[in-house]
């Protein structure tokens, strides 16, 4: 178990900069998720923590040690790969035992540790199988057990759920989180799936184009996006953005409701909305349309719970509103969020 710190790390390849001046710290036992679209540098950052790539600039500290130039094997980290990277010719037992075997551990210790790790992930009965005889979920758990077997300081996971089918992914996510709570090891998890990130992370680091856009708890990231990129990257459908002079207004579709829906006298901001199309999703309805009235005509989406009785008139201007507390404001040129009354996360915003 250890704290992990990244200090102003950059990775420059010959043709592009993959990671640019990233600083962050992962607390002991924390589950941190690196989230971003593909090519945002999150995997490169993870590989630098693992020692599979060396940073061009900056420092990486694991525990109290400067690990920037250490060999992967000297960092006492463990990594779970997207395709698990199990050794196909070895049994599950030998796969899990591998990190101990290459360090020359005696066979009694190997047996104890393998049984312990396999038990933790519920693989005790499959130890004699070969990887190809197992399901995706079982392989993923084998990879977990292998990474655990030598008590790593930091646990790195590179999209370990992305090769599972949707249903399995949900249960595997749940298992993974319970498992991390139980083991309590400092973890860094890379994903491009915001649902995974929200569900798993103690904190989320949103990355784009090699830079950190925001660091915060899932709630902070969702409720108080640091800029318009985070605002539109998080949430499905994304936050509506409407420009109003030199600021950009932002509001989540679920906070964008018919004015009649608000109690008399509540603090709301009226926004006229013209609905073009309604999408029925079971629990919710999505209303596609344009913001209009005194705001520039801009596409927007409202999400209305099916339990709210409301039938929009297509094509005509309707009075919609957002509770003023749910309205976000961004600088129109930089895209950065402007201070919101009652927001308490300045200390966690990480820019530059």
């Amino acid at each position: 178990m250890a704290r992990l710190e990244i200090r102003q790390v950059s990775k420059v390849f010959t043709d592009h900069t993959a990671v640019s001046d990233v600083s962050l710290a992962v607390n002991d036992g924390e589950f941190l998720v690196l989230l971003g679209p593909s090519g945002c540098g999150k995997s490169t950052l993870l590989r630098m923590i693992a020692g599979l790539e060396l940073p061009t600039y900056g420092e990486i500290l694991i525990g109290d040690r400067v690990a920037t130039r250490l060999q992967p094997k000297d960092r006492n980290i463990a990594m779970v790969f997207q395709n698990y990277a199990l050794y196909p010719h070895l049994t599950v037992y030998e796969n899990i035992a591998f990190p101990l075997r290459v360090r020359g551990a005696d066979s009694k210790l190997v047996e104890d540790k393998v049984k312990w790790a396999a038990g933790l992930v519920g693989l005790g009965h499959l130890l004699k199988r070969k990887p190809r005889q197992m399901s995706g979920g079982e392989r993923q758990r084998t990879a977990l057990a292998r990474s655990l077997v030598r008590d790593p300081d930091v646990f790195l996971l590179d999209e370990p759920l992305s090769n599972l089918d949707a249903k399995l992914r949900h249960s595997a996510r749940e298992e993974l989180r319970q498992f991390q709570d139980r083991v309590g090891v400092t973890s860094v998890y890379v994903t491009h799936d915001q649902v995974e990130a929200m569900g798993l992370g103690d904190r989320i680091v949103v990355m784009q184009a090699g830079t950190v856009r925001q660091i915060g708890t899932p709630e902070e990231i969702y409720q108080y996006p640091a800029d318009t990129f985070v605002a539109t990257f998080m949430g499905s459908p994304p936050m509506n953005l409407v420009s109003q002079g030199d600021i950009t207004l932002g509001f989540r579709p679920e906070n964008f409701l018919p004015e009649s829906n608000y109690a008399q006298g509540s603090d709301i901001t009226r926004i006229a909305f013209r609905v073009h199309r309604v999408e029925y999703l079971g629990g919710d309805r999505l209303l596609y349309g344009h913001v209009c009235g005194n705001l520039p005509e801009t596409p927007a989406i409202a999400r209305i719970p099916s339990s709210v009785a409301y039938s929009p008139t297509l094509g005509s201007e309707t009075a919609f509103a957002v509770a003023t507390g749910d309205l976000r404001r961004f600088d129109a040129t930089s895209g950065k969020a402007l201070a919101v009354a009652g927001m308490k996360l300045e200390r966690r915003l990480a820019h530059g």
Partner: protein
Amino acid sequence: MAEARAALRGDRTLAYATLAPSVFLLLLLAGVPTITVFSTAMQDIGMGDMSGPYVGFENFAWALTSEAFYTALRNTFVWVFGSVALEMALGLGLALLLNKTFMFRGVARAIILAPYLVPTVVAVLVWRYMFHDIVGIINAGLLSIGIIDKPLLWLNSQSLAMLSVILVGVWKFFPFVVIALLGILQSIPQEQYEAAKIDGASSFQQFWRITLPYVMPVFLLTALLRTIWSFHKFEIIYLMTGGGPLDATTTLPILVYLKAFTDFEFGRGAAVAILTFAILVIFLGLYFALIKRAEDRQ
């Protein structure tokens, strides 16, 4: 039901009809010669009397009691295992080297293939010049750096002829091994090595525990193919030495040829050919068992 059976019968007829030409050709080109060899081996066929009387297993009895056969058998084993061992070792080494990233790797890969593409006759002619005791570059080179003090008779001494022939065979055929192994080496996922590095495996452990198990089935299969092909390899040896000096490089295929077309003892030649075939079958059985085991372990 009846219709289904009729349809099935129709399908079968079509299947047999389309197979017939291939089967006919196979019988004509492989079946007939095989039967002819067997019947020839049972006859005392010579130059004077091509109809030859039936002599049962007399030709086999001759082969199994003659010194020539056992010499050829020994030579064959030296030739086959000498060449295959060297080819596999050299092939694996170079495949590992070419699998690394370095400048001009593409060019290096192309150059490695060259020997495999040179026609055997051309290659042998060049090598015979190179091995020549007086004007050959090999003796000249060894003399000039002082490893030997008088020219070696590479192809004309009983002790060196087999070594020379093996060296040429290895030079000609190791590229095949390189290509086969390079293919499998490149299919090893990079993550396997990255996982192993993080798990603390040294370079040697990565080779021993990942690379080697991964390439083993292909390695064995390649060795098997090279064994079969070397076993009945004829032209390289015949063109290099004609089986000589004396019988120093007379392998079983050379013996078959010499018996049949130099001594004109067709019956005895055919008997040796069949014995060669039988030995090869035994080896194939052993190899296949080995490969199956390697694949089961995979």
